[in-house]
């Protein structure tokens, strides 16, 4: 049956892949000429957009799908950013790889391999921190959990601030720019696909059942603690990954980069897109990244707009742009009269419940 459904979705899949390849080629063409057609400023925002997508989608797994309200996502980002930077700047992973394999340390292969290793280590560390923090705190409910995760994010920031090895309050600067458009784009796609595949499986449904009714889930045989911690640590993993990519594109990281305002930034994306909709998170990440680029010089105004967005969405459209529906080419198909295939976890109706 799944195969039948997958055949139905074949066209949608091919279209999606074609669209992604075109986006990659287009951005690559626009940003890699000498001089590039789009200036570095645009490229920087496009990279930022990808990082924001990873952050929003991974936070949505925790907040939207599993129903565990976390507002400490920037803390995990910090873990990934700092640890990966330690690996490239202090442990000299790129040079080590070059020395072991005989590759050119300034060549793309060694640089990309070094980046991937550093990113993976940063993400894993964030996931481990997620497990360590998740085990005790995920017993808390709703607003208590929110506060605990906020506190956790601030503790991570406070600790980084006090470690001289990683620069203390000044942070680390001069980080080699190892992230490129291609690596960032591919890792973004991988992140979204991994989270999407997780959600649309029995394990993802186990997480969603916790959001829907924790007591019923537990008595129906779902080990709710295990799945909360799992969702939390997968979310933390990708936040760490995003942090690592961030560190290796923007040269500098400081403890202040990862304060709870950053966590709120990500939260706004998830809430605007719809808690429980991955495509919603992606759309919201795009909208808000453009908005903040447009308001580059008006930081306070940007935050006021974010604030009003949060308030107005909650009062007038608490399900956000997408509720818990997903957008795909199959949805577009159904708009033109074809009957859409309702897949396992897709196109659910209704608003989020808490």
């Amino acid at each position, binding site marked *: *049956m799944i195969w039948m459904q997958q055949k139905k979705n074949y066209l949608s899949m091919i279209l999606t892949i074609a669209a992604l390849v075109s986006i990659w080629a287009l951005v690559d063409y626009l940003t890699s000429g000498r001089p590039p057609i789009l200036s570095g400023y645009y490229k920087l925002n496009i990279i930022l957009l990808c990082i924001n997508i990873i952050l929003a989608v991974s936070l949505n797994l925790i907040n939207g799908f599993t129903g565990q309200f976390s507002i400490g996502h920037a803390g995990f980002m910090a873990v990934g950013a700092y640890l990966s930077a330690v690996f490239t700047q202090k442990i000299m992973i790129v040079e080590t790889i070059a020395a072991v394999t005989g590759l050119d340390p300034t060549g793309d292969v060694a640089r990309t391999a070094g980046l991937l290793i550093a990113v993976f280590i940063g993400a894993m560390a964030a996931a481990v921190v997620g497990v360590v923090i998740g085990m005790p705190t995920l017993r808390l409910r709703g607003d208590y959990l929110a506060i605990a995760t906020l506190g956790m994010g601030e503790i991570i920031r406070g600790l980084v601030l006090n470690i001289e090895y990683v620069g203390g309050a000044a942070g680390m600067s001069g980080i080699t720019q190892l992230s490129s458009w291609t690596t960032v784009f591919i890792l973004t796609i991988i992140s979204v696909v991994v989270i999407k595949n997780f959600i649309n499986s029995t394990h993802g449904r186990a997480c969603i059942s916790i959001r829907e009714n924790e007591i019923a889930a*537990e008595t129906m045989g779902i*080990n*709710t603690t295990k799945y909360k911690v799992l969702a939390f640590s997968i979310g933390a993993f990708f936040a760490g990954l995003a942090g690592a990519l961030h560190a290796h594109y923007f040269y500098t990281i400081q403890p202040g980069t990862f304060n709870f305002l950053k966590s709120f930034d990500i939260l706004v994306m998830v809430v605007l897109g719809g808690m429980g909709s991955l495509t919603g998170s992606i759309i919201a990440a795009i909208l808000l990244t453009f908005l903040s680029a447009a308001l580059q010089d008006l930081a306070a105004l940007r935050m006021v707009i974010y604030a009003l967005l949060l308030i107005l969405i909650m009062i007038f459209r608490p399900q956000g742009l997408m509720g818990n529906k997903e957008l795909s080419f199959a949805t577009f198909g159904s708009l033109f009269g074809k009957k859409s295939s309702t897949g396992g976890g897709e196109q659910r109706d*209704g608003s989020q*419940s808490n």
Partner: protein
Amino acid sequence: MTVLKVTNLTKTFGGLKAVSDVNIEINQGELVGLIGPNGAGKTTIFNLLTGVYEPTVGEVVFLGKNTRNLKPYEVNHLGMARTFQNIRLFNDLTVLDNVKIAYHSHAKHGVVSSILRLPSFVKGEEEMIHKAIDFLKIFKLENKKDEIAKNLPYGEQRRLEIARALAAQPKLLLLDEPAAGMNPNETKELMEMIRWVREKFNLTILLIEHDMSLVMGVCERIYVLDYGQLIAHGKPEEIKNNPKVIEAYLGEEVAHA
């Protein structure tokens, strides 16, 4: 064979004894009723059996295993499933997903297989869909499989909850007022379904009901609870004529009738 053996089960909340010194024994294949007036502690007993509450005193032995310190999901894995008096469906999910979630603990594909979409994932998810639809068919819900659970009419929500409990493939099924809010026709139909699934799946069933006549009709043995204590137990005819029961429970009902 004894499926469930409850000895001296007691639960206090603060100073209040909600359940006091209850002994219950249920054998394989039985359909047993647990009745009593409102607030007698019936649902508390279900919560104690399923591990939602920890007993203050006493033991629950299920299929030879003491369930003390087991979490609800572990009790479920041993083979106990339940429904709730105040229906607890996964409201925003489809009917099919509700049932698939209950089948989760029998799934063989892991997280990695799911993320990488390995063949074991495809096979596992396909099997889940088939099983879930089979359970929906029993309760005449298969053509509603893509509906959102909360949009179902009340009677169908109750039936879905039972289908979901069955999908966990329990050996003992606990039903908490399954017919609450149903009309007489629906109730009759439901009771037939319950009898049928017991035969088909070789189930043992413990049923809480408020409606005496209904329990009398379907259960082979009945326990009567009042103020947290068992005041009687026996065959329906014995219960019907037990003066204590009449005083505590029927008396009240008759007076209201």
